[in-house]
């Protein structure tokens, strides 16, 4: 399978990439690791006229100590998240979840920012960003703005990043010592989750679900139940409340609801919520 023809711009910096986006507008897509975008292009489900390649920009590949948070460059690859000592110490759910994305070859190429900006509800890391209450830093012609994870995912494969903007950094609150769990159910180890859950218990509990609707979703009913004093088992019983999961080859909607309740219970118990 071959993608439809496109023009290729190799950006030399973030500013260069933003200039290319300004020039080509909606016709252009940013290319990071390409492991979400290229498969869609090979199936002709995406046919951008211009690809702006930012995958090689070292200036956006880093994990740094930002004081109360870890600052992660958007082009940091999954493998670098997996092996980051800072993240293992301060936000261990992120490297643990990154280590389950796809397979080693995918993790050598895929990036945190690419995964988040793609906005696929079946991807693992958006749910982790929600559970951790991460903040996305988005740069555009008007400068830089911060977007909380809860306002970032807008629709199916749609995020708060505008066509002339670029996700440049992800800020993850330090939660060393917090309880956490990332659970997902797949038919084969390298597959997307049929359903997944990320939970972080740090005083209050953040819980988010993978593949339970058109966007990565916060499990608000579970969080409310926990805040009102419910046990993990009772809170997990409402895991699918207000959600409208899709049906596909792997699971019908009822099975996804069942998986959500089971996986949330396991995650809450492991996280000590």
């Amino acid at each position, binding site marked *: 399978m071959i993608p439809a023809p496109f023009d290729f711009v190799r950006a030399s910096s973030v500013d260069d990439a933003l200039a290319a986006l300004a020039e080509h507008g909606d016709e252009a897509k940013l290319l990071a690791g390409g492991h979400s975008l290229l*498969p869609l292009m090979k199936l002709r489900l995406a046919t951008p006229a211009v690809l702006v390649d930012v995958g090689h920009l070292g200036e956006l590949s880093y994990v740094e100590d930002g004081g109360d948070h870890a600052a992660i460059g958007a082009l940091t690859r999954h493998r670098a998240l997996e092996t980051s000592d800072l993240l293992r110490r301060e936000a261990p759910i992120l490297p643990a979840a990154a280590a389950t994305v796809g397979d080693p070859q995918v993790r050598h190429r895929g990036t945190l920012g690419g995964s988040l900006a793609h906005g696929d509800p079946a991807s693992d890391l958006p749910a982790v960003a929600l559970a951790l209450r991460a903040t996305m830093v988005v740069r555009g012609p008007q400068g830089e703005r911060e977007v909380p994870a809860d306002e970032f995912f807008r629709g199916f494969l749609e995020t708060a990043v505008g066509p002339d903007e670029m996700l440049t950094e992800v800020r993850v609150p330090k939660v060393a010592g917090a309880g956490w769990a990332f659970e997902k159910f797949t038919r084969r180890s390298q597959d997307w989750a049929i359903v997944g859950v990320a939970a972080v218990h740090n005083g209050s509990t953040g819980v988010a679900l993978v593949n339970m609707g058109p966007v990565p979703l916060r499990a608000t009913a579970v969080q409310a139940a926990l805040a009102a004093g419910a046990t993990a088992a009772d809170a997990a019983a409402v895991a699918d409340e207000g959600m409208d999961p899709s049906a596909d080859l792997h699971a019908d909607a009822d099975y996804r609801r069942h998986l959500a309740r089971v996986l949330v219970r396991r995650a809450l118990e492991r996280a000590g919520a």
Partner: protein
Amino acid sequence: MHVSPTVNGTTQAHDVEPRLLLVHYLRDVVGLTATNVGCDTSSCGACTVLLDGESVKSCTVLAVQADGAEIVTVEALARDDELHPVQQAFRENHGLQCGYCTPGMVMAALSLLREHPDPTEEEVREGLEGNLCRCTGYHNIVKAVLAAAGMPGATGVRA
């Protein structure tokens, strides 16, 4: 678009269409046909090569993304009649049946051993999760990788 990757130690220079996939570049432009196209959907790993020292699925990388990079394919491993330790271990442990997945399996194993020089069996099984063997010959492939881990030069590439 002009690309100039280094493939198995030799610097290349070609003009290619931006949509050319790395696996087709390696097979059809450079002429190295050991790397197989399997599923063509980044699932099976038959097209695995090393890109700057790490395993990647070359059906999901554009040739233009590899401009300036260092690519290693399975052709670079053996020297004359002497197999690379990972190849030798696959041979000795019967780590292949039909052989179609083998080039990708060997490259994935090499990358795995670079990250885990002394892996447990579980680490080998998980580390090869991106490579499918439709003969289902996994048991001997795992044995081969564990055997290779103990051999001198198992993580090296001489290209």
